[in-house]
């Protein structure tokens, strides 16, 4: 772990051989070619950024590198020798470790146990040497500047501290290759800075780092090299110093970005929804806004700012502690999504697989589920009417599917999202809330969703769009509300809207730290 030599300068690294390479790796799942002959090279003492849209194959690469998946074709080469990671343990033994998107560890185990699970030091009786384990954990935690007690249970730690525990774990197995899968997604600004320093430490120790991120600023801040994937295919790689942000974007999306947001002009009409003083004990506080007919209202903020929590409260998943929602100037009490549907507010959730669609049920049954009383008589199903309703709305969204009784789970992400939106439109709502509507879907579907959103607004529907993508927020919204730490911090319109103002409000002027 304590390797003495410093990071080689980036000039000399060109001559260096990669520690680990993927050579024409292919991986297919039923109906999808997740990876189609991709290459990737990781060099000692360097950070390689893996860039690509959702669905480009990044997480499949991570799973292949860590032994969760076995490739169908191609080779994994380590130090010039082909290797096979048949199980996660093989990858760990070879010195490849991953710090995952959501720090997935074990709540009921202590920090030290989390760090050392699978490779704990043993006493001569073969029992876990708790003392040595705690000592070494404390060492590693000090090394990364984390002030965490090795003996506390993980469930008693905050999210940032958990992340540090995951990093400590990566260090404990003396890894040579460290994979960081969107490591900053849940961190505050100070924590992110600390993470960058840590990455520099790892580089100095000669480790090869694969850094997966959506944020261009951080890619340019810490990466030495980049590799771009698109739709499971290798698009290009090179040195960060040699490219501009726009080049990378071009490679990622395969087309110019401007085309993506076909905002049309919509007639903004009377007030439809008015939210007054909505609060929740732990998640959000004092949310006030109005929404007019034909308007698209953007909700911007960092991940974890409380936007989804507020929206879910608005449709009755959780109860607010105080506050009221008025629709068409009448107070509506919404205790469940069923009430919300009656009141004309519907919510297209971010988590499509869990909250949005019922993947193992056919398309038409998904579409009609919230509208069953429309398609049935006296509680009895009428299939012809169900198919008619499902057809009407899926065709409006230009759904691509083999048949309407195909299971939703068999569709691509973009088509799944179309089914979910069709399902909600079929209830003929007044207000539709779209939570990260284009997350994880391909570019084509993304454009279709944006186009459709505009069309809805122009037909007089009021839209609330929760999004963390600045271009999307700026391109689609008439007005934007920024949330931070559960509170509304800004309401911006027209000329006030710029990427800088959005970020400034979302992050807060004062950079705040989380003492864990």
């Amino acid at each position: 772990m304590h390797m003495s030599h410093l990071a080689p300068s980036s000039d000399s690294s060109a001559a260096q051989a990669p520690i680990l390479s993927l050579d024409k790796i292919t991986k297919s799942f039923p109906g999808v070619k997740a990876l189609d002959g991709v290459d990737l090279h990781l060099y000692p003492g360097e950070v390689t950024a893996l860039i690509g849209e959702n669905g480009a194959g990044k997480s499949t690469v991570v799973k292949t590198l860590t032994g969760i998946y076995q490739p169908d074709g191609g080779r994994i080469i380590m130090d010039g020798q082909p290797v096979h990671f048949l199980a996660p343990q093989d990858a760990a033994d070879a010195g490849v470790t991953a710090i995952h998107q959501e720090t997935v560890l074990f709540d009921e185990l202590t920090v030290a146990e989390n760090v050392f699970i699978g490779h704990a030091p043993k006493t001569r009786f073969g029992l876990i040497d708790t003392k040595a384990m705690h000592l070494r954990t404390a060492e590693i935690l000090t090394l990364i500047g984390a002030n965490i007690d090795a003996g506390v249970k993980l469930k008693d730690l905050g999210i940032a501290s958990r992340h540090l525990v995951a990093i400590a774990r990566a260090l404990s197995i003396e890894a040579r290759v460290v994979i960081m899968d969107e490591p900053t997604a849940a961190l505050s600004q100070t924590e992110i800075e600390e993470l960058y320093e840590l990455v520099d430490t790892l580089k100095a120790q000669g480790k090869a780092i694969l850094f997966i991120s959506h944020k261009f600023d951080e890619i340019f801040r810490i990466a030495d090299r980049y590799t771009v994937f698109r739709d499971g295919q290798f698009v290009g790689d090179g040195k960060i110093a040699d490219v501009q942000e726009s080049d990378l974007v071009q490679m990622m999306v395969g087309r110019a970005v401007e085309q993506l947001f076909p905002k049309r002009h919509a007639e903004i009409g009377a007030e439809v929804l008015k939210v007054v003083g909505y609060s929740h004990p732990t998640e959000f506080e004092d949310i006030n806004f109005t929404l007019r007919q034909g308007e698209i209202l953007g909700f911007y903020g960092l991940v974890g700012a409380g936007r989804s929590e507020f929206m879910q409260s608005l449709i009755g998943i959780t109860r607010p502690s105080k506050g009221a929602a008025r629709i068409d100037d009448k107070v509506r009490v919404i205790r469940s999504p069923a009430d919300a549907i009656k009141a004309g507010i519907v919510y297209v959730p971010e988590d499509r697989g869990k909250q949005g669609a019922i993947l193992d049920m056919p398309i038409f049954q998904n579409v009609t589920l919230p509208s069953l009383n429309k398609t049935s008589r006296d509680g009895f199903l009428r299939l012809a009417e169900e198919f008619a309703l499902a057809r009407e709305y899926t065709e409006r969204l230009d759904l691509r599917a083999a048949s309407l009784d195909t299971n939703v789970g068999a569709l691509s992400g973009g088509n799944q999202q179309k089914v979910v939106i069709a399902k909600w439109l079929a209830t003929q709502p007044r207000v539709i809330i779209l939570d990260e509507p284009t997350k994880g879907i391909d570019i084509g579907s993304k454009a279709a969703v944006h186009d459709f959103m505009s069309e809805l607004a122009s037909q007089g529907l009021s839209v609330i769009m929760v999004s963390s993508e600045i271009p999307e927020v700026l391109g689609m919204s008439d007005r934007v509300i920024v949330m931070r730490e559960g509170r509304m911090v800004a309401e911006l319109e027209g000329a006030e809207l710029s990427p800088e103002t959005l970020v400034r409000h979302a992050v807060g002027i004062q950079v705040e730290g989380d003492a864990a």
Partner: protein
Amino acid sequence: MSYLKSREAILFGAIGCLLLVVATRFPGFVAPQNLVAVFTDTSPLMILAVGQMAVILTRCIDLSVAANLALTGMVCAMINVAAPDLPVAVILAVSIAMGAMLGAINGILVWKLSIPPIVVTLGTMTIFRGIIFLLTEGKWINAHEMSPHFTGFPRADILGMSVLGWIAVVVSVVMIVAMSRTSLGRSIYAVGGNPHAAVYTGIDVGKTQFAAFVISGMLAGLTGYLWVARYSVAYVDIAGGFELDVVAACVIGGVSIAGGAGTVAGTLLGALFLGVVKNALPVVDISPFWQLAISGAAIIIAVAFNAQSGRSKGRVILKSAEHAQ
């Protein structure tokens, strides 16, 4: 402060209160000798419960423990009838090996075929009992057919407590060490706590569940011999329905049915709680027919309690709320 709120402390207090209440009317109940007798009487439940705990921690359940106990116990008794001079050590080894094998059958079905544990063990529960019938054609093996050293072993007295009680103590100590200080023990917690992450850390979820079933089976087999020897009788229905008491002890002891959370100490106290109730009922002149209903009510109360304390706090977004917690 968190120690005072822990399940162990609450159960310890509850058992203390129970003893105190009984003692006010029947001081003899809390005499050391009687307490040892209660402990011994609860030993089979304690041994089975710590095995069941391992299984429940991995998000499974083993409803076949009592049937395993009965089958292994019957086989031990039949071996004793066939070879009366076989030393107890051999019988113990046979009982543990056979129990482990029956547990392994459950484990392999869960591991290799991914059949839901409840289905597997509901099935093997009836199959094991049925096999006893096939072996014996429904006949009993009674005390006079068993050799004295076979029946005497669990009842033998060491330092004022019977061997049965001491075995429970040894099993408890071994399980405490195994669960907290071995890789398998920690893996069992990890698999139940977060199976997804367990895979990423190189733990084989199915194999760990298999191991838990083998542990549970081993202890059930061991208890099988001890049970048959202690009561000096073996027949198809011994320990009928006992699996429910075992699950009850775990749930009362704070083992979460969702897996990953629970301690050996809690489980032992859960078993002791049921044991004290069972032994106290006749003393305070309540019909033993109340016992079933009481343990049912205890399960429901305990699981409700578990759910309240284990309820996820959710993400705290508001800074002010975070400090208030």
